[in-house]
């Protein structure tokens, strides 16, 4: 098991380096520092001198990958890639292009707000979706199941924007139960979190219930379920004991991979509800054309995804005794 985890982490090293190089290509080659400078300084009234100045100030006046003017290690180190992109490997995110803020510190400060929405949404979504899906699976073939499915399809067909605006209008404006948007520190934040969590739950229920129901129904058709019924077990025990643990295997793939992303925040939710998390941080950076921040967030997303996949594989061993790593 330990050897498996070590091997997986070692596999992750070349992938992370590859991701780093690819993001660098995307941000320094496809989109050159000259373009960046022009966009930040404003497309009009830009003199070549101003561009050069900006590049010099922000450290983009070096060659992208290889510096032929230097000797020895300098050929590699005196480049934009080495100065700007390589430090990401040891999580040194550098400073933003526009306001010269410390990106790493900003991320560490903001991720808790993202987690404050992400974690309750994640936990409640699993509980609610599994519960509703099991009820539908229990009622399979009946009119209630058909109607439940119908409502799921309608719920997943409606845009999340509708739920956000609808929620803000009814619960915030019309009924004045909850603040429309905003954030506060510590426990005071709870009243600001309820609405976004409810909206996010409603937005994910349709697709989630439908997926889990399919997983359950697939399990209820298996031979071992027939054996369990032949033993004389009641239908609820068949479903909640025998089918549930087996159904957890495909459910885990879907769920565990997203655990690292709980810190990452949601672009739409955070910008609509003015939550100062990483999602709104990214949106603001995109709007401000701050490529240093966008690059850091893209890279961070890839890392979190790799971590999520490793966690998924490890979590299999917890529910499926057939999976043994060596």
């Amino acid at each position, binding site marked *: 098991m330990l*050897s498996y985890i*070590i*091997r997986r982490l*070692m596999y992750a090293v070349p992938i992370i380096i590859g991701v780093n190089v690819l993001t660098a290509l995307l941000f320094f080659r496809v989109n050159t520092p000259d373009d960046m400078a022009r966009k930040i300084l404003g497309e009009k009234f830009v003199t070549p001198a101003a561009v050069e100045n900006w590049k010099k100030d922000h450290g983009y006046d070096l060659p992208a990958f290889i510096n032929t003017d230097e000797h020895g290690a300098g050929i590699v180190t005196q480049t934009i890639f080495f100065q700007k992109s390589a430090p990401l490997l040891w999580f040194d995110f550098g400073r933003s292009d526009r306001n010269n803020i410390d990106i790493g510190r900003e991320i560490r400060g903001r991720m808790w707000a993202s987690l404050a929405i992400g974690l309750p949404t994640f936990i409640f979504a699993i509980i609610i979706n599994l519960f509703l899906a099991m009820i539908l699976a229990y009622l399979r*073939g009946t009119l209630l199941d058909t109607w439940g499915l119908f409502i799921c399809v309608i719920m997943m067909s409606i845009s999340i924007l509708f739920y956000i605006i609808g929620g803000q209008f009814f619960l915030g404006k019309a009924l004045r139960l909850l603040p429309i948007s905003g954030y506060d520190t510590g426990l005071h934040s709870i009243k600001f979190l309820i609405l976004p969590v409810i909206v996010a739950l409603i937005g994910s229920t349709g697709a989630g219930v439908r997926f889990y129901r399919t997983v359950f129904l697939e399990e209820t058709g*298996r*031979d*071992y379920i*027939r*054996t*369990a*019924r*032949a*033993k*004389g*077990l*009641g239908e609820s025990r068949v479903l909640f004991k*025998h089918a549930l*643990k*087996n159904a957890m295997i495909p459910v885990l793939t879907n769920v565990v991979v997203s655990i690292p992303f709980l810190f990452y925040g949601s672009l739409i939710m955070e910008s609509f509800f003015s939550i100062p998390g990483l999602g709104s941080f990214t949106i603001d950076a995109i709007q401000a054309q701050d490529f240093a921040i966008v690059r850091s967030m893209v890279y961070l997303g890839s890392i979190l995804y790799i971590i999520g996949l490793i966690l998924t594989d490890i979590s299999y061993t917890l*529910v*499926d*005794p*057939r999976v043994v790593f*060596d």
Partner: protein
Amino acid sequence: MSSQVLEVKNLKTYFKTGEGLARAVDGVSFKIERSSTFALVGESGCGKSVTALSIIQLLSASGVETHGDIFLNGSEISNLPEAEKRHIRGNRISMIFQEPMTSLNPVFTIGNQITEALTLHQGLNKAEAKNAAISMLSQVKFTDPEAIFNDYPHRLSGGMRQRVMIAMALCCKPDLLIADEPTTALDVTIQKDIMGLMNELKSELGTAVLLITHNLALVYNNADTVGVMYAGRLVELAPARLLFSNPQHPYTIKLMRSIPGAARRGHLLDTIKGAVPAATSYPKGCRFSGRCPREMEGCAATEPALTTKKSTANDYGSKQFVACHLYDLAFMSGAKARPLRAAADGESKALPTKAAAPGSETIVKISNLKTWYPIRKGIFKKIRGYVRAVDGIDLTVRSGQTLALVGESGCGKTSAGKTILQLIKPAGGSVCFRGQEITAMGTRELKQIRAKMQIIFQDPYSSLNPRLMVKDIIEEGIRSLLPGLNKVERQRRVAEVLDLVGLGPKAMSRYPHEFSGGQRQRIGIARALAVRPEFIICDEAVSALDVSVQAQILNLLKIIQDKFGISYLFITHDLGVVEYIADEVAVMYNGKIVERGAVEDIFNRPTHEYTKKLLSAVPALPE
């Protein structure tokens, strides 16, 4: 207490389907006594499994209608409320299934799954249930029952899992055990153990057994009474010895004569014309009418009842029941008793003489062939060893002859077949086709050889691409292996082979799912024949088929061999098929050939221990 455990009276189970009401079980009645085995035999779709599921009442889904009475120890159980039915299930009636590999829940321990029934039905506490489960596990011959108790199903072999299933089914000491194809997925040597175990526990615990199977030899050796099912009904019901010594119903007779074996060598097997009618549209009269060799004018109009026969001279008393007008005195003396067809059904036809004298020439010579699969371990996945699936085998296939490669699952016979065709690269050794070494050939040279060497696979359901029409499936092989042929020639070739396998040109633009299992295997054969091969590997080609369909396919393979002088390598676990079709046989065990020679020699005078064990495990039928 009466010795009668189960009585089923006029059981009917209907399913609502898109094509109408499917009468899967349509008026079945029988009784089972204490400590005895009642076997239901028949081909797939005859309703035997549905009968079993109706008795244990596991068909509660919507769209199912059940009628008739089921008495357990004299009391009616079919109209009980669901909670009481649950108390019977797993307690008074329990069931084991065909697939031991999937019938146990993979994520719970064996112990957990056995004790579940004990705590539920017997009210035992955890410790008592554990003791009971462990003693049951030792009763099914586990040497270390405590270890098995804490183990997970995936760590056990198929035979061990079936023993766990038996332990689980018998732990509450039920009155009736239903065994639905309990050994079909297992090797013969394990089949013998499992059946022996079931018989032993049956007399020990006084359990009645309802054995559901398609294997007639298994029935002959294990059942007391047999019911033969056809199209949702019992057509014959008799004590086992009587049924096999003196079968009465034309269907029973046909079924027994389509079993391959030594006695049928050199003859075509008996086949039944046509196919089993769909459960939604049975014939109005006798359900075997239209296929029956002894059909009479009135058969299609009136349905015969299952009665003791009265008309024959040698009366066997009241023990044998047949549903056939031939044994109905009143019917036979009536005007409708004239035979519909001339009785052309005497002894089965001998095979036509072979086109060329076989055996003179060596087609394929395999020497010291090895297939090793690497085992990788550790952080860097280094190769730490090999699974020696095929470990140095020598085989010789002669022209126009059939060499059978027999062995149990996991012995390496399928790996050997694939390696001979170079579908897997060998780890060593040589394969010579007509004197040419093919293991070292490049892709292009190999392509020319591939047209001469073809393969037919076991599973007719999954080995044909469901998205391609039959003509495209067959043409694909011709196009790739014989690039010299143009479109017209290819199409002519497709029509020709489809005609040869008895499917006709209509089959060309249909999809695989429109065909039955036997027809699909014909498509597989047509696909192999289309490139005019000299050598065909049949990898368990008839194992998934019903006996009567298997007989048709074996006949077809025989006829094709004699017509074109093709050599077969027949990979199989079925020794009856080997005795019937093969000229030579090689017995494979743990990647090695332990014995080979002419079929008569090996079957009559086996020398290797494993061959002896294998041969003695096969249930025999009376001659």
